[in-house]
């Protein structure tokens, strides 16, 4: 009995955690390239969730196809806004931050007008539950966990094993050196931004059958993603993975035992990291 109470949140947390990794990876990739946090990251997550909600939930298109469409749609929206809003800010910190908050505000309100403000539940894609050791996990959550793990693996291979992934790393490490080696900074920037937004979008699509979908879901998502990358170490990809799992588990236990106040956890994590280990768990010293 007590074992289940302790195990159930752990399993839930692990599932949340692997999906959080996708979000945090998206934010990290964009941060590495722009050197500034994309404050509209949560809104791309929201857009991905709505894409799946409409395409799978209402148009009855296959769920996996809907997920792929959500990546493409959200990446395209992201690239569009990178071109018209972020690129003219030329990487200066204050303008980029303000443009980010403007975009966040714009997308959130546009979503409220287009989709309606009320939270909506999607019909479950996978029925049934898996249970072992008296711990129950709905098939939706199992599927979400598996899809997330596959995607995280794919991103890992892309960044570390492909030429384009290495170009991304090079730009993140040293823009000018990368440029002098003949890497097309503009093209890599566009691809990186699209990838980052697409990851946020697919994370939203994965979560859509599990949680409610609503236009304001982006803000808490952004704060969670930011706390993950600060916990893991800003710019570190393994750090983002570790941070995502930790936040997922901590939050899951918090919601089980403390309820609503668990929403303050990401903020507390940020403060604790800054007080005790500024570089995060796996970040290099600045």
């Amino acid at each position, binding site marked *: 009995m007590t074992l289940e109470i302790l195990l159930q949140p752990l399993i839930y947390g692990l599932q949340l955690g692997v999906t959080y990794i996708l979000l945090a990876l998206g934010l990290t990739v964009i941060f590495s390239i722009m050197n500034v946090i994309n404050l509209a990251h949560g809104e791309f997550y929201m857009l991905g969730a709505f894409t799946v909600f409409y395409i799978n939930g209402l148009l009855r298109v296959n769920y996996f196809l809907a997920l792929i469409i959500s990546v493409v749609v959200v990446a395209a929206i992201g690239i569009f806004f990178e071109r018209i809003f972020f690129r003219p800010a030329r990487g200066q910190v204050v303008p980029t931050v303000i443009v980010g908050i403007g975009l966040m505000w714009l997308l959130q309100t546009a979503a409220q007008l287009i989709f309606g403000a009320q939270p909506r539940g999607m019909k479950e894609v996978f029925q049934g539950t898996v249970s072992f050791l008296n711990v129950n996990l709905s098939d939706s959550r199992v599927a979400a966990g598996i899809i997330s793990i596959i995607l995280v693996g794919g991103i890992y291979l892309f960044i570390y094993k492909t030429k384009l992934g290495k170009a991304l790393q090079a730009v993140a490490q040293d823009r000018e050196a990368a440029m002098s080696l003949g890497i097309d900074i503009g093209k890599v920037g566009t691809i990186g931004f699209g990838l980052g937004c697409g990851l946020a979008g697919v994370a939203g699509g994965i979560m859509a059958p599990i949680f409610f979908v609503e236009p304001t879901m982006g803000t808490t998502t952004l704060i969670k993603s930011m706390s993950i990358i600060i916990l893991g170490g800003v710019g570190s990809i393994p750090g983002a993975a570790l941070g995502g799992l930790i936040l997922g588990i901590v939050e899951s236990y918090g919601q089980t035992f403390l309820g609503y*106040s668990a929403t303050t956890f990401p903020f507390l994590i940020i403060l604790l990291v800054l007080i005790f280990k500024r570089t995060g768990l796996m970040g290099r010293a600045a």
Partner: protein
Amino acid sequence: MSRLTLKKTVLCVVLFVILLLIPVLFRNLYHLGIITFMLINALLAVSCWFIMATGQVTLGHAGFAAIGGYLSAALISKYAIGSWWSLLIAMLTAGMVALIIGYITLRIKGIYFIVATLALGEVIRVIFGAWDDPFGGLIGIMNLPPPDTIIIPGLFSIKFVSKVSLYYLTLLFTMIGIIVMHRLNRSPIGLVFQGIRQADDLAENVGINIMGYKVLAFVIGCIFAGMGGVLYTYNVGSIQPSSFTLVQSAYYLVYVAVGGGANVFGPILGALVLNILSEFLRPVKEFEPIVFALILIGAVLLLQGGLVGLVQALWRRIHEIAAPISERAI
């Protein structure tokens, strides 16, 4: 130079007289209410600008206004503490929170301050929404009594029941806040702020404690944000978790971005222009945030110095054209 100072003094006196005459000019209490909120928004915009003078963007400014508003409301309604003491305690609390958060997040350069202020703004809203006693949970605190009467024995007493008296009260505190921040910005401390914004590495190398100055700017700005929150609460007579959200913080950024950051008139002008625009947008209220978000992005990308920068550039052009003629005349 003295002619310029004289011009400025005359301008300030004229502005001040206009502000004093507002309740006479706008007899409609609805309009007077809007102007009162414009003053509060101007105060919040100026306090946001004051922090941004060090090159920091705060995304949790509404949170500090919420601290001020909530604390004063709770002290008055639940603990029967006088309005003026409540105002003071609320402002100091906002400053204390800013001191702690600023000290933790501003030690390290980078994204931490932005991230932390954004998260803080949300956390403050969640905390007040979850805390039933004394903050009233999701309903908030309603039906606050009007601010305490000021009695000067034997001479007169001022009651703050009518909208007109609340306007003057708001005007007084807004003016105090704006003048204090303006004077500080023009003082040697303000010059250091400017130095940090333009080149913090350089400022650090010449021995300036940049962390200390950044925290100082943040604390002072937040104290006055708290004051803005208190003034809001005293005017409305109630406060809810939805009174101060991230969107509100975004509004203050728009005021600064549109008005310009060169001097104190930027955020004031921004608040004025956009509040008037907001009134015109009232029939299509649901589109207002979209318009404002686009204005924010447009102002940052296209209008670097804001409206004040535009006016200054025009002024210089006029002088350039006019100067040779006047010289010839002499």
